[in-house]
């Protein structure tokens, strides 16, 4: 039994304490935007925010989450997909297959909260999520765009207009 605060709602779940938070979010809560990628905190597809910090939920026991901890998943990041990161992701068409992008967006949003004007190096250090399609250039460009950085970083071909 655990009480979780997810996207502003308290949720009680019947689940063993050692269940990874990821699987509670996906299976008990039913929010599937948070993805399973590796299960060992390497790929970042499962990234969520806990009290504003980005956390790889596949490797966090649900028993270690306090009822007062504020968990935010991709579904709760913004209303109407309006977070600056999401808008920049849309403007630059960042995703390819899209599977890793929930995690990428959550990591990028956490980065901007800490560093509203990140440098290329800040982005590279903070964004360690794996994208098998290789959208890294557009991710970097979109973080700069969301931050309002002009001429920030090296913008790849993703910075196209349609």
């Amino acid at each position: 039994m655990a009480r979780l605060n997810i996207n502003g709602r308290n949720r009680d779940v019947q689940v063993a304490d050692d269940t990874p938070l990821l699987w509670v979010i996906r299976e008990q809560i039913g929010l599937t935007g948070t993805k399973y990628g590796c299960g060992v905190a390497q790929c970042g597809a499962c990234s969520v925010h806990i009290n504003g910090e980005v956390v790889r939920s596949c490797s966090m026991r649900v028993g270690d989450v306090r009822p007062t901890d504020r968990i935010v998943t991709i579904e709760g990041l913004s209303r109407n997909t309006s977070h600056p990161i999401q808008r920049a992701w849309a403007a630059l068409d960042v995703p390819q297959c899209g599977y890793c992008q929930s995690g990428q967006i959550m990591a990028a949003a956490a980065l901007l909260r800490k560093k509203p004007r990140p440098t290329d190096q800040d982005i590279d250090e903070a964004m360690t999520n794996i994208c098998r399609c290789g959208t890294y250039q557009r991710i970097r460009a979109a973080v700069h765009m969301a931050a309002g950085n002009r001429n920030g970083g090296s913008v790849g071909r993703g910075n196209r207009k349609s």
Partner: protein
Amino acid sequence: MTSTLRDDSEISRRRFIVGSAAAGGGLALGLDMPLGGAQAQNAGSEVGIWVVIRPNNTCAIRIARSEMGQGTLTGLAQLVAEELECDWRRVTTEGLSPGQNLARKRAWGNMSTGGSQGIRQSQDYVRRGGAAARMMLLQAAANEWNVPVGELTVANGIIRHAATRRQTTYGRVAPAAAKLTPPDPKSIKLKDPKDWKIAGKPAKRLDTWAKLNGSKVYSIDLRLPGMLNAAIKDAPVYGSKISSVDDSKTAKMPGVRKVVRVKDTAIAVVADTWWQAKNALDALTVTWDEGENAKVSSASIARHVETGLMATETNGDRRNGDALAAIAGAKKKVEATYSTPFLSHACMEVNNATVRITADRAECWAPTQNLEATLAALASESGLPLAQCEVHRHDLGGGFGRRGGTQDYVRKAVVVAKEFPGVPVKTIWSREEDQAHDYFRPISMCKFAAGLDENNNPGRAARPRVGPVDQRLAQSGGDGGRSRHAPAARVLGGARQCPARLLGAESPDRVRDAQHPRSGRALAWRQHKSERLLPGMLHRGGGARRRQGLAGVPPRLDGQVPEASCRPQCRSREGRLG
């Protein structure tokens, strides 16, 4: 017809894009409509087989191929829309199912998506489909106004008759157009690509929005009422079989429903949730009869490949002139050996499939690059006729060739689901299982040798002008590599030789196609090696500084890799160049 559509979010996406990117003010209002899934989809008129037009002028373009991040969904829609002359801003897409395709005698053609062929193979007939719909819509308007169709013009889905100053929209005439007989595709004259406004132009992807907010439902995300979940473990050594299973601990674990043997080569645990299933699977004690392949090791595979590389016999490859003699007589000799390891496709979305089987129907939800192959696998494994099977389309979290012809994961999921008639069972491979039991890209090693003349040019030493090059390849099969002990059972053909033709592209395919279960994978290493040899040769030789313009270098390779980008590799390889 009913459609397996999952594009309800498209309109929301439009609203979002329009609202956030200021792409044109009034559009958002016009599209502000709640789409209720099938209901709204069915409100449209099917004009030809590729286009469905709704009363609000939204054009839903049907997509037969799979989307896995490569953008084919948008590209195909652009091709149809180009000929349709519709308003691109009002285009959505509808995914077709293989059951629909089968029921209509494969009207939508091949659904397989791989080898970068999705657009190439279907671009002609989807354009004709768009053009056919346009012709039918214009004809419907001409009939209504009783004017010759030749007097009508159309742009952005608005049909005009200049002489009488009348206009109408696709949405209005679509119901009448749907009743007309489509024109013979062969009679249709397509636009000259130089006149294209939509196709071939940069465009926003049509499917981005749902990837930004967690609303996109990949196959692994599927939730069905009463669904059970399975975790699965494949034989750790390829070709080995289950010898015994001790499930005494597992049976008592929370949520566990059943331990299922999957054809003696895999074991699965079905539970209420996947995490319960995985924990129970980890608690199982399985003894395997590992067989011959247990003896195979990385060292034995390396030995095999190296031995193959040294072999002198060829496999009947193309042979122009005597490269070996020419190289032996050349002033300088350049030699390089390259190797590639077994590679897992490593899709971000691990393999998974949900299957529900009743007495007379089998359904599957899976990430697949070939919906029809999935349907066939479902039918053969369930024992039900094709017509009683259906596969529900999901965009893939990566494909890379793993999920086309090889439907092993679907077959296994069917075996698991058969144990629970009428209940949907989702089988998910853990990352470690997915990674370890891939159909790997084959391990390979390749040696190139080339002779250079006194000016360090590769071209003058022998006929034909470019060359001579001796290319030898040895590899070990990918299918055999599905385990920690990649077996030699599937090891391929020894030495390869491609004399007297620089970067000879056709010969390495032959043996592979004849024997190799993973055709297609060879492409990567062949190009990789060919691409690396040439700059290496040039830098080594020094005389021919630029690959461009070398006589006989295939144009598609010429300049494909900027020379500058090759330099560090060339330097690092210097020691190995003879």
